[in-house]
């Protein structure tokens, strides 16, 4: 049997029933339990056409504890943070923030669909660059990214645009920097880890 068919049914023991509460405890996640599964978010989402699970399903699955499926899905990486879902949701659920929260979970767990390796990579590069210099240098970011992730041919095709950008003086390899990046790092360190905050958050009364 099991060679030909995978088990589709879910037992409660397969699921992480605490996952939704964890998501709900992040700023922005608090209304996740209000969802009426109307699908407005999916309908309005410009990227839902490509998504493995529509935003509505992400909410339903998160609520039901399908954590593995959710953090592994391509949905969170396709989300472009356009906030359409957030403004259209009739229950005022901040879906974009929930997508972020799940994305962070995926990055923490180091999982993502392989065709999306670019996204966490770009995010990581960006993060490093800003941590180092306080500013992003778009030229460098692009270069790093394409060198690391793309087949040479692809890189060249994109580079076509890149070269043109350089020619038009709209791309440069000059490093942008703030005066004292170390000071900024102090701020970032002091901001602390968000996992600690989840505990505090449970106490906070959310307005509106």
């Amino acid at each position: 049997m099991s060679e030909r068919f995978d088990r589709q049914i879910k037992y409660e023991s397969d699921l992480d029933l605490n996952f939704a509460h964890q998501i709900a405890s992040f700023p922005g996640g608090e209304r996740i339990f209000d969802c009426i599964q109307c699908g407005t978010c999916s309908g309005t989402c410009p990227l839902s056409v490509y998504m493995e699970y529509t935003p509505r399903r992400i909410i339903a699955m998160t609520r039901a504890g399908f954590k593995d499926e959710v953090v592994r899905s391509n949905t969170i990486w396709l989300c472009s943070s356009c906030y359409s879902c957030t403004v259209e949701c009739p229950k005022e659920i901040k879906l974009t923030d929930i997508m972020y929260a799940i994305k962070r979970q995926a990055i923490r767990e180091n999982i993502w669909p392989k065709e999306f390796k670019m996204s966490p990579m770009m995010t990581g590069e960006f993060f490093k660059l800003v941590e180092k210099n306080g500013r992003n240098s778009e030229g460098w970011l692009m270069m790093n990214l394409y060198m690391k992730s793309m087949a040479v041919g692809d890189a060249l095709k994109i580079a076509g645009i890149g070269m043109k950008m350089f020619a038009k003086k709209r791309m440069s390899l000059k490093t942008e920097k703030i005066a004292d990046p170390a000071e900024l790092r102090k701020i970032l360190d002091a901001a602390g880890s968000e996992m600690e905050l989840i505990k505090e958050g449970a106490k906070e009364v959310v307005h509106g």
Partner: protein
Amino acid sequence: MTATETPRIGVYVCHCGINIASRVNVKEVVEFARGLPHVVVASEYKYLCSDPGQELIRADMKEHNLNRIVVASCSPLMHESTFRRVTAEGGQNEFLFQMANIREHVSWVTEDEGEATSKSKALVAGAVRRVAFHEPLTREKVPVNPNVLVVGGGIAGIQAALTMADAGKKVYLVEREPTIGGHMAKFDKTFPTLDCSACILTPKMSMVKSHPNIEMMTLSEVAEVHGYVGNFKVKVKKNPRYIKEDLCVGCLECIESCVYKEAKFPDEYNLGLGKRKPVYIPFPQATPQVVLVDPETCLYLKKGKCKQTCLEACDRKAIDFEQKEEISELDVGAIILATGFKAFDPTNRLPQYGYGFYPEVYTSLEIERLLNSAGPTSGELTTKSGQVPQTVGIVHCVGSRDKKTNVWCSRVCCMYSLKLAHLIEERTGAHVYNFYIDMRTPGKGYEEFYERLLQEGMRPVRGRVAAITDWAMTPEEEGKLVIRVEDTMIGVVRRIPVDMAVLSVGLEPQPDAKEVRRRFNISCSPEGWFLERHPKLAPVSTFTDGVFLAGACQGPKDIPDSVAQAGAAAAEALALIDRGYVEMEPNTAWIEEELCSGCKSCSGQCPYNAIGFDDEKARAMINEALCKGCGTCVATCPSGAARQKLFLDKQIYEEIRGVLSYV
């Protein structure tokens, strides 16, 4: 008994099943009560308002010779009258009674048992101390005027008016539009039976018109309300129709011969979908079947210059351009409000649906008019470009179940959307989609109607429409409206091109609901739905005695429910009238002559001009027939001469001491 007799107080603490007992330690409260001054008996019971509970009190009164009763249970607004009656049945004056509210104000709002018990004790102490100072009072009986006022001539108002008129009461029906009928008159068919709306309604409308006991006042609004239960004085303002209603026979000759050869003004009754002339009739079965002239568009009324061909055409000489606004005064004993609802207007409020932007997006109400054989297209449904639509999308929950518009479910739109789907399919052969979040069909025959639609091939898509747009992705979509929605049953987003989109708009309170409720001195929810006294105990009463509610003004409701509620409101009004009198709460004020210094501080305070001044004696005096018992003058009097029954200063001081005497 007299006030000087030593108080012998009985205290009764109610469990209310577990409503009180689960949070308040009732035994402890009873124990505590036993120790309070003048308390002779204190006991507890599971349900004090039940028959055995009442009997317990009555029996104790006899056995222990009690002359004061305190019940600690629910809100006095719930059962004060019950226990006053019990006190009277036990042989004492009904006002030698006081209630402590340990349910609504304690057990239901307090987390901690200890705190709830303490608070209960404090409230009981307050009541016990207060009741010791109660005095026997008598109620005044005031005769009730047997006439009734019904405001709003929709199906609810019509039903209430007919019921009361059939019972022989004189009914004034005030409707602000030129015709009665309300929303129902606009529909072609009604769910779930698909009866013809006109076939049910128009006979009722003409019955109203011809009923000897009903005085129908259209184009009229209530301007002022004075008085109180049994004796309201109401001012009604009637706007000029420019037609003598009693002369006009509805031959429509005047319309025919108006100087405007073509109907060119948007017709309000048809939501602008049709055109009318300055002189017109809203629809052929309008009641009264009388034309009206619109002062905004009639040349004569607006500019003072017109050949007035209408005048010549009328051989009944019914047209009267001299008509002015008229005020009439009515005396009535009871009032029924049936002012209905307003359909949600999606203009600018849900721009993603493109209403007012794309011509082929309609509201459901507009479609009702287009499907109506008496409507602007005689029941023919075509797009604005004159085509018969081949696909139609009906969008549910427009302006409902949405925190950004209205949070409530409007309750009727799922069903009327199914009705419209059926009618559209029947008239045009179009494929009809219904886009819904949940299909709400709870009612007799409603689920069966849904099943029928499914069998007829209606295309259901479970998903709230995200947007209606006009940009095409495929050749099939060119020139059409595209509905973008997640088919949540499948979990994919679909784009569905349609020729016509119908927005199933929800129900909202009337925009002037807040002014109206103020005029009638009743309450409403923050949104504007009129507030019933209690959803189960008194669903058609309000907090103002003698004012009742019927129909959708109280909350979204379909026609069967509106009619049922109208019947209930009529029954309540009839019960009031047929009793013939109301017993007034004896909480009026009076002046203790010897104490009055004649300072007149009180006289300006009374909103009802109940306070006069006896110049000879240089003393104030209160006309108790006019006093409504607010107590404002009492609070003002520096000499303690003004006093209020049931709310004597000493009673209140004792209550204050009592509630503060414990923790």
